[in-house]
Every structure is written in C-alpha cells, then in structure tokens.
C-alpha cells in the first residue's frame, strides 16, 4: 500500500530555565494507507505532543512531516483530529459544532447541512441534531467529536486518547463503533493514528503498535498485530501480545 505519512527525525525540545528537556528525540516512522496505528507509551513520553505535531497544531523543534511526500507546514488540511476531552463549544448545538470546520472554510449552509446529516447518521447521533453539549453524556459528546472530525473528510484521522474520558461500557461501545466505521468503506479515511495508554485497547483496535519510551521519547518498538477481527481478548495470541507490549512499556519507564 502507498505511503501516506512520513515522520523524519521529529524532535521536540521543551525549554527550561537552564537547559532544554528533550521530549521527543528523532522520531521517524511511516504510516501507509489502510493502517490503523496506535502510539503507546508511558505517561510523559510525548505521544500526545507527537500527535499534535502531525496535526500541525504544534511546530516541532526540528525534523519534518511529509504527507504524500510533501512537507507540511501549519495545520495539515488532509488530517482531522478527535480530542480526549472533546473540545466542543458549549454555545453551539450538535450540528453547529460538527459543521464548524466547514463553515470556517466557507462551505455553503446547504452543503454543510447535507454533510452534517450524513455523518450524524453514520455515528448514530440522529435525534440529537439540535441538542447542546451540556445535554449530552460523555459518549455522545465524543460521537460529536468524531463526526466533527469525519465531516472534514480527511484521509488520516488522529485520535488523542479518545476513550479515556469515558466509562467502561461507553468506551466499549464507541470502540466497536470506530471499528464498524473503519471497516464500512463509507469513509474517506485511508488511515487512523490513535494515541492511548490502554494497551488492551491498542491491541484490540489497531494493525500496528508503535511503542515510545520516555525521557526522551524514542521509538522502541514497532509491532504488527496480525490477528483477524473481531479479536478475542481472552485468546492466547492476544494475551501474548499484551504481555510483550506491557513489558516494553514498563521497561521504557525504568
């Protein structure tokens, strides 16, 4: 499959008074079309920062990001992002929140609504079109977050700990939803990159897991998950992978 994204020696320094702390140290990897990649690592390994660098929200201290072989500066318009704490505007209703990005790009109201309804339908938000975020549970808010990202029809979807602010069942439900969308073929998406600290979640969902170390953040593992979906969490293969990645993350911490 074709290469979608390439990171070349991405380094991020965090300036302190006397010296710089290296948050990310020469991170390089590629993501190809059709891949669901998870970034896993102990807290403080800079995985969320790395995701923001890919999105163009944060400028790296050095190194470059190539999207389809073209270097990206500023917000990458081919990607979209789902945030951990949703980041919805409380004064806009569900439809307005979802179409914010289209509105900012000058898409007409008619077209905006047409697209909004398509994705509202896909993520199961019908009936909530005119609700305000404060009326919604965490799970529903994150569905809005997902629809807001998808409506931009990105090729690459970034998700920053998308299920960690949700309760167990809601998270379970949304994970299934993401897999269903991902395999439905109804989306413009070519690839997904997800940041998570939940190893089980990463194995359950992704095709490939990139493990980062901390202080400084480096790539210390790149593991393919060859299992067919739906995956059985109790299978031997799953448990083995879990143990392997778990020990990598623990080692990375020490």
């Amino acid at each position, binding site marked *: 499959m074709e290469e979608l994204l390439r990171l070349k020696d991405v380094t991020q320094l965090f300036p302190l008074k006397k010296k710089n702390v290296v948050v990310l140290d020469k991170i390089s990897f590629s993501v190809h079309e059709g891949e669901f990649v998870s970034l896993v690592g102990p807290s403080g390994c800079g995985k969320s920062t790395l995701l923001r660098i890919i999105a163009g929200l944060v400028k790296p201290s050095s190194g470059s990001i190539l999207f389809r072989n073209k270097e990206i500066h500023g917000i990458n318009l081919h990607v979209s992002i789902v945030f951990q704490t949703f980041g919805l505007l409380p004064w806009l*209703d569900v439809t307005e929140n979802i179409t914010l990005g289209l509105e900012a790009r000058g898409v007409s109201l008619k077209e905006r609504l047409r697209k909004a309804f398509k994705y509202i*339908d*896909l993520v*199961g938000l*019908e*009936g*909530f079109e*005119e*609700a*305000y975020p404060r*009326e919604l*549970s965490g*799970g*529903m808010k994150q569905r809005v977050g997902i629809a807001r990202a998808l409506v931009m029809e990105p090729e690459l979807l970034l998700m920053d700990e998308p299920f960690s602010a*949700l*309760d*167990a*069942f*809601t*998270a*379970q*439900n*949304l994970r*299934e939803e993401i897999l*269903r969308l991902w395999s439905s073929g109804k989306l413009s998406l070519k690839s997904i990159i997800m940041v998570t600290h939940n190893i089980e979640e990463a194995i359950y969902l992704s095709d490939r897991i990139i493990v980062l170390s901390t202080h400084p953040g480096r790539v210390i593992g790149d593991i393919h998950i060859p299992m067919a979906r739906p995956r*059985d*969490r109790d299978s031997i293969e799953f448990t083995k992978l879990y143990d392997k990645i778990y020990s990598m993350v623990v080692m990375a911490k020490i």
Partner: protein
Amino acid sequence: MDDVAPLPDVEIGEIIGMLEYLKEEGGKTDIYEIADDLNLEIDDLVPIIKAAELLGFANVENGDLILTKLGEEIVNGDENKRKILFKESLKKLPVFKKVLNILLSSQEHFIDKHELLSMLKQEMPEDEANTTLRSLINFGRYAELIGYNPEDKEIYLDKIMEE
C-alpha cells in the same frame, strides 16, 4: 392505567456497551464478575442492568446476566436496526406510552418540559422524576421517537410518528 415506573439514569452507549461485552462473554456471565472485570462499582452497574432488563435486552437469573434474543439482535444490528429495535421496546414502556399519548392527543404534538416534569412528579419522587425526564429525552431522541427543542424547552413527536 399502567404504573409509571421511573427510568434508570443511564446512557444508551452504556446499555449497548454492556450488551456487547455480554456477547463477548458468551451471552451469559456473573454480575459480580462484570463489576470485577471492568472495575465498576456495583452502584454504577445496577442501573445499566435495570435498563437493559426493562427494555427486554437482558435478563437476570440467579446472579447471572443473560443476553436475550432481542439483546443479541441489538448487538449484531447496525445503527439503524438498533434504533428500530430500541423504538419498539420503548413504545412498550408505560412512561413512553403515557408521553406518546399526550403528544398524539395534543393539537400541536408538543409538551413543555416543565409541564411534563410536574406530571412525572405526581407519580414518583422529585429526584427520580428528574432523571426519568432526562432518560426519556435521551432515549426518545436516540430512537427518534420524540424530539426535544432546547430553545423552547419543548418535547415534540418526531416526524416518523406523525403518520
């Protein structure tokens, strides 16, 4: 008139998530084990189980939670199928029957939120009336049975019902 029982304070995502979990466990599991496995407080789990039972998606027998046929259909169905099944189950609930009756019989097919709340308060304690109203709006919106306009604070009949 049926006894209008309060609705549990849960989200649709929680119910469906639990059904999905249940299916993964082979359609039957010990309630205590669910709580243990997912690190859930029993107090958080009980309302979800109650809701699933009320809607006919799961049964409790001797401390086990068992996925019903309807529940399995929900798990296997796509979003639209789920909504249809949800709608059928909701229509059987006394609270929904009552609200739908009011909406169908009123001329404009809508009712003020506060009006409905004070009606619910005659049937149950204030706390439960509040959560019931919230779940009612949430479930009803999800199943596209009723809609709610937050600007005017009005609950109305969704288009599909207005045949």
